């Protein structure tokens, strides 16, 4: 899920008020720490923030089913971006925070964002108990010790026309991506620390235009941090997280560039055992395109992983899942059909 590093960078680069501080990100790490092979993330310590790394996020997507029988999707993300590899008190903190929240229904896609400086208490991530928050949006641990802080979460967010409050309970273990959490992302050797919790069972409520709807479903959490993960020729990416009905999970992405692109995937067994796939093992191709908010994006995909006998197609709950944030992208819930039916989330940038 390294792609999200790129997402963050693109977002920040294009946000006019934020551009300068992120220039040069594609180059060296400029004093920031870089991930090392063989130093696996430790919990609960590494649930928290890593201010000496340039970028970091806590990312949650939930595929929900309403009491009305309809499909919904919810996204909750907190990004951290550091102007300098340090933390200072008050407004002098070089840590910047950005929140994205979205709620997708069959007919509408709501999205909103928040920006905040670190150091003054408006946004940040704390441990024991775990809490990631920006303004009134929060992702807070509900776990009772000694259980892992992420084993149970409560998330809330609200924007114009929507809000949600969800309770998440992990039905499986944390999954370290790549080599024990060290996730190599490109041929040049760029990497990030990356782990997921793809086994959340969700209950809660969403509100759409003031109308409350009780929901249940499953959710996928990612936490990733790094400092220099980008390739300069990449133009965008397509990212997939699938919950198969049989209990297994699949994370995969394609980074698009001038050539054939770069794909990567992790198969996660129902018991949580990850099976990282070699680069190129995943094949993705658009099946249908649509015009969304002035952008032409693929809305149906064919995704195959021959090594696991997977050949599925995705169909969006709502074609118009466009994030109208400072830099826009498509992120929304999908239904999966084919050899392994299920639900999931797709994210597409650079269209």
């Amino acid at each position: 899920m390294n792609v999200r590093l790129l997402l963050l960078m693109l977002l920040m680069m294009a946000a006019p008020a934020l551009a300068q501080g992120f220039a040069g990100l594609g180059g060296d790490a400029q004093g920031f720490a870089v991930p090392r092979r063989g130093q696996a993330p430790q919990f609960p310590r590494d649930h928290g923030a890593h201010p000496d790394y340039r970028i970091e996020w806590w990312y949650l997507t939930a595929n929900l089913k309403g009491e009305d029988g309809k499909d919904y999707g919810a996204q909750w993300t907190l990004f951290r971006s550091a102007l300098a590899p340090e933390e200072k008190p008050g407004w002098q903190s070089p840590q910047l925070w950005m929140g994205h929240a979205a709620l997708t229904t069959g007919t509408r896609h709501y999205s909103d964002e928040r920006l905040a400086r670190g150091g003054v208490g408006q946004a940040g991530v704390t441990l024991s108990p775990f809490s990631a928050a920006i303004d009134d949006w929060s992702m807070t641990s509900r776990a009772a010790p000694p259980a892992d802080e992420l084993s149970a979460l409560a998330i809330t967010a609200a924007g114009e026309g929507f809000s949600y409050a969800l309770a998440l309970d992990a039905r499986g273990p944390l999954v370290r991506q790549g080599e024990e959490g060290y996730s190599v992302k490109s041929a040049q050797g760029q990497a990030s620390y990356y782990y997921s919790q793809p086994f959340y069972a969700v209950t809660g409520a969403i509100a759409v235009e003031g109308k409350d709807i009780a929901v249940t479903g499953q959710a996928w959490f990612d936490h990733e941090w790094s400092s220099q993960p980008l390739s300069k020729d990449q133009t965008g990416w397509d990212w997939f997280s699938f919950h198969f009905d049989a209990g297994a999970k699949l994370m995969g992405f394609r980074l698009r560039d001038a050539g054939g692109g770069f794909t990567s995937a992790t198969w996660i067994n129902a018991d949580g055992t990850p099976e990282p796939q070699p680069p190129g093992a995943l094949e993705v191709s658009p099946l249908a395109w649509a015009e969304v908010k002035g952008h032409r994006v693929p809305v149906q995909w064919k995704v195959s992983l021959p090594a696991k006998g997977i050949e599925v197609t995705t169909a969006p709950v709502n074609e118009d899942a466009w994030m109208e944030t400072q830099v826009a992208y498509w992120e929304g819930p999908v239904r999966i059909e084919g050899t392994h039916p299920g639900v999931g989330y797709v994210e597409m940038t650079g269209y």
Partner: protein
Amino acid sequence: MLTQGFVVLLSHWRRHKLQFAMLLLGLALATALWSAVQAINGEARASYARAAAVVGQDRLEQLARPDGTRFPQSGYIALRKAGWLVSPVIEGEKRFGAERLRILGVDPLTLPSEAAQVNVGAADIGLQRFITPPGVFIVSAETAERLKGVETPPLRISDALPPGMVLTDIGIAQGLLDAPGQVSRLLVAAKQPGHARPLAEVTPDLVRRAPPEESDLSRLTGSFHLNLTAFGFLAFAVGLFIVHSAIGLAFEQRRPAIRTLRAVGLPLGVLIMLMVVELLVLSTAAGLIGVALGYGVASLLLPDVAASLRGLYGAEVPGTLSVRPSVWGLGLAIAVAGTLASAASRLWRIASMPLLAPARPRAWSLASERALRLQAAGGLLLLAMAGLTVFLGSGLVAGFASLGAMLLGAALLLPIMLSALLKLGERLSTRVVAQWFWADTRQQLPGLSLALMALLLALAANAGVGTMVQSFRQTFVGWLDQRLPSELYVTTRSLDESRKVHDWLSSRSDAVLPIWNADLRLFGQPVQVFGVADHATYRDHWTMLEAVPDVWDRIARGEGVLANEQLARRQKLKLGDAIPLQAGVSLPLAGVFSDYGNPRGQVMMGVDGLVRLFPDASRLRYAVRIAPDKAPQLAAELRKAFGLPQGNVVDQETVKAFSLRVFERTFAVTAALNVLTLGVAGLAIFASLLTLSGMRLSQLAPAWAMGLTLRRLALLEVLRGAALAVFTMLAAAPVGLGLAWMLLAVINVEAFGWRLPMHLFPFDWLRLLLLAVASAALAALLPALWLTRRSPADLVKVFANER
């Protein structure tokens, strides 16, 4: 035919180059003064608008404490956590070198888009540089110029900022303003998600305010600019008098040419069209010159205007002028329109003139007594209107309308008054030359009356405004003496230093009087509230316009407050009225004091009450009483003991000098415009006499033939000019007095909120009379000199020519 006709018309100007120059100059000058005022006002207004728009203050609602004091930023965090989209702003002043800058600290990440006039992410600024110490100062080009050589964070220039204002990061600003963790107010984003907890629950101490409809600056300075505008109008009106008279003369002089053109077959419509085209060309050319000149005048005056606006209102206006198309356009339009309006009656007369009307240049000047009486009736009507407006109307515009009506009415009455005076002169004269002198002057009157009316306007304005300024000055100086009785004024730099300085001074002086103040909004306006100690200094010196008997005892006991005159007048306050100082706290008005030169409302109360009600009041300044001869030494010791800069310990004289300087600057512009207006009027007389002189040969020739030498005739011409100027000044005197009274008793009260006593300055008036006489005599001198050089043959020819 068309071309020939046009050439014939234009040839007049070739033969009367001076007249042409006068017409152009008159029109250009009138346009220049008008445009100058417009350009200055435009610049100032644009600057206020910029100031008001910075960080969206003119469009966004805000949350602030009712008294405007700073509050901890935890309130900001609490609101964000409660779902409110608000963005913190800290505001304050700080001195950098000699410049006092208004610091505006914002958080670029939460700043609503309506408030983001400056793109902090732009390549030359950059978010990282902006928020990382030492930060970046975003300022106007002018402020950057002023800060040259001064140590500040790196400067970046933006047009969005008014002079004297700095936009910087909130963290940087908190450091500079020595207010860590404090904010002044919160900007409320226009779009709120709508699920937030009620404000009253989250931050009960903050109030939500709609964006002000009019910025405090525009309101404060409105009267100042209206003043300038009125002067611009006056100057333009005076200029139009010149244009009217010059055009009239030109038309009359061209009667023979017009008759000939018509006789050889040029249709009337074409002729009139040609003349209109001629006027359009002339007025456009003059208008262009005028607007260009206007910019020159404006850029000369602007630094003074900017200085007085800063001194008087704290309003920052750039000292350099930018070119505004609207000012150019308006200047040109008003020049053309004014010219056409001045020429309309002439064109009408040509249109209705019989084809072969005799070409008698003299005929037009013999305006009938009936016409004069009609004009006088119009004048009387205007004067009556002026009187009515004063008594019935209210507001600044009514005041100026009344002024205008009075001036114009007096001007219209002038010819009949002069005519009567000259008739009287004629009757009183016994010698034949004297009789001829008066009769001939009277006969010339219609030709000169417009120029004389212009002179009357200029003289009256000069006398009136002069009297107002001098009265103001005299009152102001006297009031300063009373208002600044203390020997030393000390400004400390921090609360801690303030306490130490107070203790240090207590044992070394007769009294240390706190000058502590806080800002509050009272009746919807920004008002300063000062705390005063219970001390004889105030009892003995403070001038009260009205007060309850034991006013100072009541103030000392915290049982009442004082208000300055402008606040009391604006709000129509009476003694005993409750003044709401804070929610639930109001005190009765115990007295009203005069407070000249201060546009803002001010309230005074006992210093204990101030500290109790406004814990955040600034407590840095003191007035020190000590024997005057010991003051310099104490000042030096004080500076040395605390390392206070020179400017933080000032003596009475310095403060007075500073106040007076602000005052002088305020009226520097008025004085300049005054002189220019008088100049235009002088020019008008010169132009009229010059043109008349060319036509007067037929009147002078008989007098010469009967034995008056040319020298004597020329002397009489100069005398005539002087006599007319004296008479005009006599007529202008009462108008000037009326004007001064209206300025002091009506306009000042409306504009500034204070009423001043009127003082008379006979020497100023005498000087003005001499100036008028000198300028009229000078204007007559050149034509008179020409007369003495005439050859007898020219004069004899008058009798030969058929007329």
